């Protein structure tokens, strides 16, 4: 699993600091405030002659290099820095915590907009927190200044990002301004967009490539509302979907598969085809074994091998209706062969892994593998394909 944070001892850092990692000296001192120097560089000598204007320096060793000027904020004794690359954006807290906000070499960059949520999904991998965390917004806006313009895709997640209201739109507006080539994927439960004004507000940004990923867990309120633990959520989400569609905002339907959702999956597929044929795509996802799942394991766990009938019927019926269907988080050895063409290697690289059983499997490279969190509990039917199936 990819490492995303580390810790060291900070000197001269009084408030949270966001910057872009560099191992190459920046010639123009006026630009240096955006950069944090990674001292593990062959250019260290060049840096030492002129460190003026950089926002901080990262050092792995236990003590400060003797040649380091005194005026620069630093973090030393950092346990590890190998995971950082030039162009990554990190945040340094006065406590010495170093967190990666954006990894230049990854296709899975996700920005946590808020930890607050108006739902409480049984299987939530990011359990909501009630506290006001709007302090994130200026950090995010600063982050957007620093992200590489070539970034192919950004995910805005939560919590429920729409709870930010106008702040969410400010972030999306800035994305459109700063990152004109970046696809934006907003993960929202869509409930607040039942207010058509919000949907229209989003549409006025005219983002060149934004899609809202919205979960729908059943074709009926009683199941959906139970899964998200919120009465009226089904109704609000559908009103939201329609408001967004009427405003011309592209939407994606996301379904997490578990014991509460698999039974009516074929009916849900038909409901989507009949009522939401305008969705850009439908994503059927294996459950991530993370967060609240553990608390609700008995209600949620089902071996994926047991829902292959329903998954096959739902997938093929959506596909024959002309809808784009994607299967996430399913290992090929538990996925019926007819569904392989729909399977996508979707797990974010930093959460992705394989288990010992996978050794020698000839389709491993095609297979999505596991969430790191799924290593402990997974299908009983994981097995390697020793020859091409």
């Amino acid at each position, binding site marked *: 699993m990819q490492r995303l944070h580390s810790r060291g001892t900070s000197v001269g850092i009084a408030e949270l600091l966001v910057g872009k990692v560099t191992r190459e000296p920046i010639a123009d001192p006026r630009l240096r405030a955006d950069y944090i120097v990674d001292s593990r560089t062959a250019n260290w000598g060049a840096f030492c002659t002129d460190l003026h204007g950089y926002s901080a320096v990262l050092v792995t060793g236990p003590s400060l290099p003797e040649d380091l000027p005194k005026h620069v904020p630093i973090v030393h004794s950092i346990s590890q820095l190998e995971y950082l690359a030039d162009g990554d954006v990190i945040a340094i807290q006065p406590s010495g915590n170093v967190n990666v906000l954006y990894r230049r070499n990854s296709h899975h960059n996700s920005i946590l907009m808020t930890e607050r949520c108006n739902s*409480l999904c*049984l299987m939530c991998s990011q*359990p909501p927190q009630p506290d006001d965390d709007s302090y994130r917004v200026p950090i995010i806006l600063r982050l957007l200044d620093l992200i590489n313009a070539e970034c192919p895709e950004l995910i805005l997640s939560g919590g429920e990002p729409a709870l930010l209201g106008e702040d969410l739109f400010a972030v999306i507006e800035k994305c459109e301004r700063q990152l004109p080539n970046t696809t934006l994927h907003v993960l929202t439960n869509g409930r607040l967009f039942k207010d058509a004004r919000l949907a229209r507000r989003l549409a006025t940004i005219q983002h060149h490539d934004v899609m809202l990923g919205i979960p729908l867990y059943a*074709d*009926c*309120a*009683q*199941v959906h*509302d*139970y899964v998200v*633990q919120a*009465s009226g959520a089904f*109704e609000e989400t*559908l*009103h939201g979907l*329609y408001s967004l569609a009427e405003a011309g905002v592209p939407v994606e339907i996301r379904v997490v598969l578990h014991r509460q959702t698999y039974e*009516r999956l074929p*009916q849900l597929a*038909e*409901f989507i*085809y*009949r*009522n939401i*044929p305008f969705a850009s795509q439908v994503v059927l996802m294996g459950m991530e074994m993370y*967060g*609240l799942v553990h*608390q*609700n394991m008995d209600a949620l766990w089902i071996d994926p091998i047991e829902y292959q009938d329903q998954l096959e019927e739902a997938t093929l019926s959506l596909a*024959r*209706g*002309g809808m784009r269907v994607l299967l996430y988080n399913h290992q090929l050895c538990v996925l019926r062969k007819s569904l392989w063409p729909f399977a996508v290697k979707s797990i974010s690289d930093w959460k992705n892994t394989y288990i010992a059983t996978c050794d020698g499997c000839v389709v491993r490279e095609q297979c999505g593998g596991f969430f790191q969190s799924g290593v402990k509990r997974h299908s009983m039917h994981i097995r390697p394909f020793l020859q091409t199936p």
Partner: protein
Amino acid sequence: MAGLTFYDRPHFSPAATEYRFLPFQFIDLDDTRIVLVNEVGEHYVTDRPHFDAFIRKSLDRADPIYLDLAAKHFLYNGDSTLPVRLLATKYRTKRQFLAGFTNLHIFVVSLRCEHSCQYCQVARVTSDRAKYDMSTETAERALDLVFRSPAPTLKIEFQGGEALLNFELVQQIVHSAEQRNQIAGRELEFVVATNLAVVTDDMLAFIKNHNILVSTSIDGPAALHNANRPRPGGNSYELAVAGIEKARQALGYERVSALMTTTKLSLECPEAIVDEYLQLGFSSLFLRPISPYGFALKTQIRTGYDRASFLNFYVRALDHIIDINRSGTHFVETYAQLLLRKLLTPYATGYVDLQSPAGAGINVAVYNYDGDVYATDEARMLAEMGDKTFRLGNVHSDSYEAIFGGELLRTLVTASCVESLPGCADCAFQTYCGCDPVENYAVQGDMFGHRPTSDFCKRNMFVIKHLLQLYHGEDPYIRELFWRWIQQPYTGVAEYKG
């Protein structure tokens, strides 16, 4: 995560109030099953005991059938506004064929023909061009009207008689329409309906250069085709097949389609007709009954047949087509294809003879060689028999507003809304069907028609139910096949719009 409270499923059940019905109709599917259809064409099959429980409002809220019926908008509970919003959107989607107004414009460029087909309603074997060819002036006036239509897509279809006998006018109309379209900016398409007997290389070069589709006629194997379609030399089939080959070489396979007319002779050999189409390299066949108009009505004894014979023919041909697909050859029956789209998709499927209100005038208009404008091709055939009831006006003497906004067209629309027609208003297959006020008038004497004695009604009731029985039958292959047909683009139906 301590402190989080999760509620059980019953906590989220709908209120224990009595559920209410949303609009739907129903009919027996077979001895044990009933099919329910809602206003947007979603259907649900269930058995009698469950249906009875549903109707008596005694279905349990936890019953999967309750959930099915709620999800498909047959029932709702509480004060939810959601079903109405979803239904309204789906209803609008299903009616999209109305949005563009008249998009198919048929030009009868000549009534002359070198064939004298048994069932043909209109053509004349004559060399009197002055009398039976459309004039340039008439064509230009008709084009004025075509471009007044607000439709984003305009399809101009050349018919006859034999359209190629007045090919100079076809060329002029194409040039003029293309020129007008430089300003109008519509999606402009051309189709020429022809028996291909007189087609030349020069004609095909023009047809290719202007991207014109060719729609021809093949009634079946040579003996049947030639018996149906007499011409000097008795070689209609041979000329058509040679013409198809030539046209395909010039234009490409997908640019040449064929239509079949079912006559009394056809009824004996559905399999042979299907095989003929297959052998000629077509990938679809449209099983159409003969139009009850004009000469066809007059020569009923020779060419006509009763409904039961046609349905028997249809079922045999469809079975044969299914078997052909099963053995690995892709082949579509077009009438089933368009009905299946209505049955199984949320999208609009306009077909002038099978929509509500009918497409007469609002989706199709016919400009006759003499400048008269008719609401449908059948309406002008009726006129050739001396009954000009459905003449909307004349391009030389009437304005666009008078022709396309006048009393007659309004009456046709009013008379063809199945939602309010006696016998249709409470029919389960209403959303899949339509009506043809011109046929009602021709056969039954008034535009509104009489369903209990209507062949149109019986035929469609039978075919729709037959398709539903197949879809919900034992054979999963048929369900798969029907979906494959739906995914196919339509071919071979010049009149199709959707």
